[in-house]
């Protein structure tokens, strides 16, 4: 299977040089984009459309550390984007408690229209998200380096739990943003 890393001719791994990736993206776009072959045959234009679509997808995934981590985990067989993903059901109990506490506190702030409180919570959650992502990144780096015991089962689970938290925190931050926009409007 052709991975997003293959599109850019990169070695699969968590660490990506984003400025270099951006430069390469622009160069590849110039070669592949449908606009560059607007007068060519229908077949060439379809190829250009498909090539550019794949390139855009790969670029979007690899330039963003969070998306990149989710993608690597998916390559290890766990797709957190799927609603029926078993991994979601198997989050540790402490995390569920954390979620409920945060949820309750945010609902209170929104009910009171307390933007300051919501923003303060967002800052705290932002830090937790960063820590969770770092944890996932650590596990993924080790996994990608290879030579791990039990075929990497334990590391995959660690990355999966960490990214499950990242996902929840991201949604939380989106809710704060939406609340902020609502207050400003």
């Amino acid at each position, binding site marked *: 299977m052709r991975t997003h890393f293959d599109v850019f001719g990169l070695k699969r791994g968590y660490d990506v040089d984003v400025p270099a990736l951006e430069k390469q993206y*622009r160069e590849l*776009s*110039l070669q592949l*984009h*449908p*606009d*560059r072959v*607007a*007068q060519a045959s229908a077949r060439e234009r379809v190829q250009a*459309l498909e090539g*550019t*679509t794949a390139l*855009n*997808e790969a*670029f*979007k995934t690899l330039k963003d550390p969070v998306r990149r981590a989710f993608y690597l985990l998916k390559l290890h067989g766990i797709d957190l984007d*799927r*609603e*029926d993903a078993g991994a979601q059901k198997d989050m540790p109990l402490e995390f569920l408690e954390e979620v409920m506490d945060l949820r309750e506190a945010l609902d209170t702030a929104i009910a009171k229209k307390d933007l300051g409180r919501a923003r303060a919570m967002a800052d705290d959650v932002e830090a937790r998200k960063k820590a969770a992502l770092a944890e996932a990144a650590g596990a993924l780096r080790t996994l990608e380096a290879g030579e791990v015991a039990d075929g990497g089962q334990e590391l995959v689970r660690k990355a999966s739990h960490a990214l499950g938290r990242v996902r929840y925190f991201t949604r939380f931050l989106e809710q704060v*943003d939406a609340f902020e*926009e609502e207050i*400003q*409007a």
Partner: protein
Amino acid sequence: MSKNGYLQIHDPLKPKGQAVGIDLGTTNSLVAAVVKDTPVCVPVDEGDSPLLPSVVHYAQDGGVVVGARAKKLASEHPTDTIASVKRFMGRGPDDAETRKLGHHKFAPGAKVIRFDVAGGTPVTPIEVSGEVLRALKRRAESHFSSKVEQAVITVPAYFDDAQRQATKDAGRLAGLEVLRLLNEPTAAALAYGLDKGSQGTFAVYDLGGGTFDISILKLVDGIFEVKSTSGDSALGGDDFDRAIAQRVLESLGETAPSPALVAEVLAASRKAKEALTDAASVELTAGGKTHTVKREDFDTWIQPFVQKTGTVCRRAMKDAGVAAGEMDGVILVGGATRVPAVRRYVAELFGREPLGDIDPDQVVAMGAAVLANLLTTADRQDDVLLLDVIPLSLGLETMGGIVEKLIQRNSTIPTTAAQVFTTFKDGQTGLDIHVLQGERELVEDNRSLARFTLSGIPPLAAGMARVEVRFQVDADGILSVSAKEQSTGVSQSITVKPSHGLTDEEIEQMLLDSIDHAEDDIQARQVREQRVDAERVLAEADRQLREHGSLLQDGERAAIDAAIAQVQALMKGDDHLKLKEAVHALDEASRPFIERVMNQAITQVVAGHSVEDY
């Protein structure tokens, strides 16, 4: 024929004629093309104006008038004259935008908006826009003495799929191959970027007649990468007009004004708004009374609209991950950015004076012309490329009326995304697919683009059948959806036809009708031209016979008279080819006689007489 025969002109280097860029605006529309490496707007209306008012008048006799002449007919025939039709593109009769203060009369029933106009059947916004595009195409053709068949048409960046599809259909109706739907702010950046060879991060603030767009772009080495776009497709300079008009109607004590009065007051309000750009206070006459409008009052009335643009700008900057102070330039587009209060607001918001050295009315059409030229250049040597984004997220309805987003807003296009759904009942053989566009969580708060049912799923236990739904968005920002059951490979693919658009069959029929009409038009014009030609020949023959009858030889007179009678008879008919033959026959019959007349004249000049003596 040749002087009017531009339709026949064929430039082998440009088999499809001149490629143009079209700004299909709410208030005015423009057409531009690249001539000698420079984009120029084509004169399209009275006084060689490059602005064609986007106003279409439908006359009682079925005729259609577009532009300044149509605009003048608006107050007399308010319901037969459609203005600002762009506001209605891809919308339904129940949209809030449709119900704003206006003078149009809608035909009842139907899910699609239809304007009730004179001269026959009601017309849809797509047809009205098609008339504007057709007028631009014709005027460009006569300007360039060349066919015009390919165009880049601009749309507000914030147009949703339904609005884009409607615009593309309007292009098809006008007989244009739409090379690309280009986002207006991106077009403006293209016009500026290529002009200045700029690099850096730019904001394009585009406040037109009926739409507001903001785009944040990064320019690096000729590549225009849109980082984010946002907007409000129901906010624009027309709202400023309505803000004045509402106050005027209030002061007239009109609670249920007639369409004619609304049209009159709106037109006067627009003029007042424009005058307030330079004057601190203006007089406005409408409804038989004169009103004074002060700029400071006007500024207060429009403040809510102007501030709304600020909220949208902040969202775009956040999505792009840039701060207001980080811009290398702010570009103003759209006539409404001439309003001083708007300029002040933009300068304050971004902390820098905006650029406005290209005419804000023309910059979008010019950028579109640049792209049209690039897309029709065979061997491209340039490194120019636009990487644009989709303005609104695309998703599917899932259990509980919640939208599951498949493609996030501000994703670079073309793009694709897929989601697998499983059946939820034992033996379920069909799956309803509801496609939505927008940012909200609940289905009813988003724009419904299409609904279809995937049938033929094998009856399995709940959760066993797996259906993959795939979205593909092309470089025009238009969505197609396909669905596939994974175990059997049953698949269905549709190009999303928005609920408020026209079906492909309807478009085809309209296209056929318009081609029929176009043939009628050409036919009628050729008959007219041939008649004029015949009249001229008859008058000439008559004069020569009267003045030089003595030079006729035996039998000549009878042959010439017969040929004249034949021409006169055919002039009453509609067959321009037969008429042309008869004129030719008359020429032939009278040639020896005319040659004798010429010879005699020359002989007499040589003999010392001037031709004038005869």
